[in-house]
């Protein structure tokens, strides 16, 4: 999407690199130039016009930052709305950590309604609620308890500490710890987390730890814009996306995934289509279906026999002839519709059309699946192809030749991989786009045919050029003379650009001509000419974070210092050098940039956030 706009925003300029290649007019832009272009587009996007396009940027939240990120959001609430920490958290959890929405609603609903809907008591009670006696009767255990052993919530309800503790433990064990309501009937107030922490840790430290972990993970579990990276074994990271959540991201661990459904990146297939497709591929129900519809066991040797041709007399390789309709053994003497000496009378039009339908469905599935598989299989060769090419480049570079720059090979190869991905996922897309399974009443048969032709035309063009590009990249250019190398280079650069343009066009066709007219909205992740966005690392403004860390008490040491402050200790010099951004991460431009994995600290943390709580609790 982005690049489509790019050309309108700032027209292509010729790059210095290309001018060396004696200015071949047929050569389109090089990838380097595209990067420059895209940066200007990003700038434009960030300056405004974010609304109507699939804009999104992602940032990775490592376990060190998980706390920092939520502290930052909490701090905003505490400072701007004058809330206590547990009320700020209650509000954020209720509105799924969407700070902007909270401020929007504050305008629309007003403070009182916003708070009471989230379970924050409006009045701040003084301890006047507790009678001035030394003992009270707890309304849960009916025991008389000294006033010192009673706790009151902000809503004014009070019970004995022992009852509160039991209650909190039951709630935490039920997994409800993010929103523990007051014990009083019909009271919606959320309990003070400091009290929960204090009482529970005195009795069951392990349960208090779970409570703490649940609070921490709420930032991910109750947050539509943050998801755990689906890597296994889990890398410990979560990814936060700003903007359209229909996008594909890459974690710093290298795992690429569809942010919306956490499955592998599958665009231009939609999440719905992808889910159906993997299910279909998994159970191969078509094949089973086909075998049951298209074969019958031989009455003599019991092998499955396929019907070939229109007549109902079938012959097994064992020599036995039998009637297709009833499965009974017969002689071989027959006409088109009857077998002599045999009358089962089961021939019906219905039977044969059902068979035909099953056969057609299977062939349709096989058609798409074969092509899908051909491209995914080629992708599996990715690593090997890359190694081969590197080897060819190293030979070429050491050759006695005036050509020293072979970056076009790598650029071409990356283009090949990206476009193969697009092609591969375009087959399951087409399989569902032009069938009744999802879009039964969306198109008339005529419309469907028209659109299918339009799409397949683009798909075929793309496929044709991808294979050509692949052909040129497989050439043994290391053995070529200079002019042959130049010729190959021109073709590779040319085809790379053609293929990129065709991918873009196919996405435009999908988004504008196929999906846009649908009555039920259907979204796909946008085309990324440069490959997936790698999530940028999250940085927190130190000044404000430091301020807030003073106002917040956390039980363990790690939380007191902000990550980033001691980045040098943890061995990640990268952090120190990079500018500290305000909380939201920005889309990082990463094409060709070496992967900057950061070492994660392991000591000091109270819990192992490498596994989400549910998993950890099960083990």
């Amino acid at each position: 999407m982005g690049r489509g706009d790019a050309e309108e925003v700032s027209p292509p300029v010729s790059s210095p690199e290309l001018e060396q290649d004696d200015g071949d007019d047929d050569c389109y832009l090089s990838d380097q130039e595209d990067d420059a272009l895209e940066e200007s587009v990003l700038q434009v996007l960030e300056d405004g016009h974010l609304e109507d396009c699939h804009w999104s940027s992602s940032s990775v939240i490592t376990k060190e930052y998980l706390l920092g990120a939520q502290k930052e959001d909490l701090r905003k609430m505490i400072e701007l709305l004058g809330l206590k920490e547990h009320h700020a958290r209650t509000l954020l959890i209720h509105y799924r950590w969407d700070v902007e929405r909270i401020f929007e609603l504050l305008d629309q609903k007003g403070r009182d309604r916003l708070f009471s809907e989230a379970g924050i008591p409006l009045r701040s009670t003084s301890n006047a609620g507790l009678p001035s006696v030394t003992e009270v009767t707890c309304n849960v255990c009916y025991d008389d308890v000294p006033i010192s052993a009673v706790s009151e919530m902000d809503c004014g309800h009070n019970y004995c500490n022992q009852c509160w503790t039991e209650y909190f433990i039951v709630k935490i064990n039920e997994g409800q710890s993010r929103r523990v309501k007051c014990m009083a009937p019909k009271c919606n107030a959320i309990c003070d987390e400091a009290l929960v922490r204090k009482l529970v840790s005195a009795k069951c430290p392990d349960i208090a730890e779970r409570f703490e972990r649940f609070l921490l993970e709420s930032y991910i579990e109750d947050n539509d814009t943050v998801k755990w990276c689906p890597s296994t074994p889990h890398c410990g990271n979560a990814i936060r996306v700003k903007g359209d959540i229909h996008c594909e991201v890459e974690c710093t661990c290298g795992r690429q995934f569809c942010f919306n459904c956490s499955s592998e990146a599958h665009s231009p297939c939609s999440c719905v289509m992808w889910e159906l497709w993997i299910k279909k591929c998994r159970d191969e129900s078509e094949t089973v279906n086909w075998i049951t519809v298209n074969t019958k066991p031989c009455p003599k040797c019991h092998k499955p026999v396929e019907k070939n041709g229109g007549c109902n007399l079938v012959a097994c390789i064992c020599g036995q002839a039998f009637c297709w309709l009833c499965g009974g053994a017969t002689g071989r003497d027959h006409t088109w519709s009857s077998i002599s000496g045999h009358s089962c009378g089961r021939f019906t039009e219905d039977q044969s059309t059902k068979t035909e339908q099953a056969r057609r469905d299977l062939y349709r599935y096989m058609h798409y699946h074969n092509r899908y598989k051909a491209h995914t299989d080629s992708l599996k060769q990715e690593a090997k192809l890359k190694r081969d090419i590197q080897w060819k480049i190293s030979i070429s570079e050491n050759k006695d030749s005036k050509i020293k720059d072979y970056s076009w090979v790598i650029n071409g190869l990356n283009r090949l991989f990206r476009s193969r991905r697009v092609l591969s996922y375009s087959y399951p897309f087409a399989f569902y786009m032009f069938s009744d399974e999802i879009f039964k009443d969306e198109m008339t048969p005529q419309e469907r045919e028209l659109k299918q032709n339009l799409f397949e035309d683009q798909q075929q063009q793309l496929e044709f050029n991808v294979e050509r590009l692949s052909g040129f990249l497989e050439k043994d250019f290391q053995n070529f003379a200079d002019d042959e190398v130049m010729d190959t280079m021109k073709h590779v650069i040319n085809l790379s650009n053609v293929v990129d343009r065709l991918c873009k066009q196919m996405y435009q066709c999908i988004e504008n001509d196929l999906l846009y007219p649908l009555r039920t909205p259907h979204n796909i992740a946008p085309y990324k000419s440069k490959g997936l966005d790698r999530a940028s690392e999250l940085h927190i403004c130190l000044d404000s974070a430091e301020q807030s860390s003073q106002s917040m008490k956390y039980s363990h040491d790690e939380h007191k210092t902000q990550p980033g402050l001691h980045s040098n200790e943890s061995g990640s010099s990268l952090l120190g050098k990079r500018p500290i951004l305000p909380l939201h991460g920005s889309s990082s431009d990463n094409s060709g940039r070496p992967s900057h994995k950061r070492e994660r600290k392991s000591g000091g943390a109270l819990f192992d956030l490498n596994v989400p709580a549910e998993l950890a609790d099960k083990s």
Partner: protein
Amino acid sequence: MVDVSRVQKELTECNRDSAISGVSIALHDGGSSISHLTGTIAGPQDTPYEGGTFRIDIRLPGGYPFEPPKMQFITKVWHPNISSQNGAICLDILKDQWSPALTLKTALLSLQALLSTPAPDDPQDAVVAQQYLRDKSTFLNTARYWTEAFAKSDSTGMEEKVQKLVEMGFPEDMVRSALLSVNGDENMALEKLCSS
């Protein structure tokens, strides 16, 4: 695990004024387990349940009172929010709206209130709820009949009477409505059946 002292206090407190409240609780089958109880509710006035006594099976989970008690009608009852099959109850305070500050007595009183004001939009028994919404008079008749047949102490002989009349050749539904209309008098019912 169950807070025994609290449950004992609850029982005493509940049974103290059961004549007025219409609800009472006892150990199940006179047994000895404090976590298995039986509650009784008097059918509320001006409802098809009036005059009936409804028995409820009460089981207290280990986390009681921090977890809700499990309640189920033992007595068969025709009501949109109570299963006509197994007596399961659809009531919010027995699920997520339970509060440890509520008691078994308040829960039984809520059940009594539920008998007075059914909530057919959130049904436990879809068949009953449909009938309640579409054919109120049939609903009232059936509910009344079930109360007669299952919730009254003298209803023990009811099934025998039905059986006897059915064996004489009358259709069961006619037998039941005839018996119902004459308050279970076998001879009067027979007369009625013969004259119709």
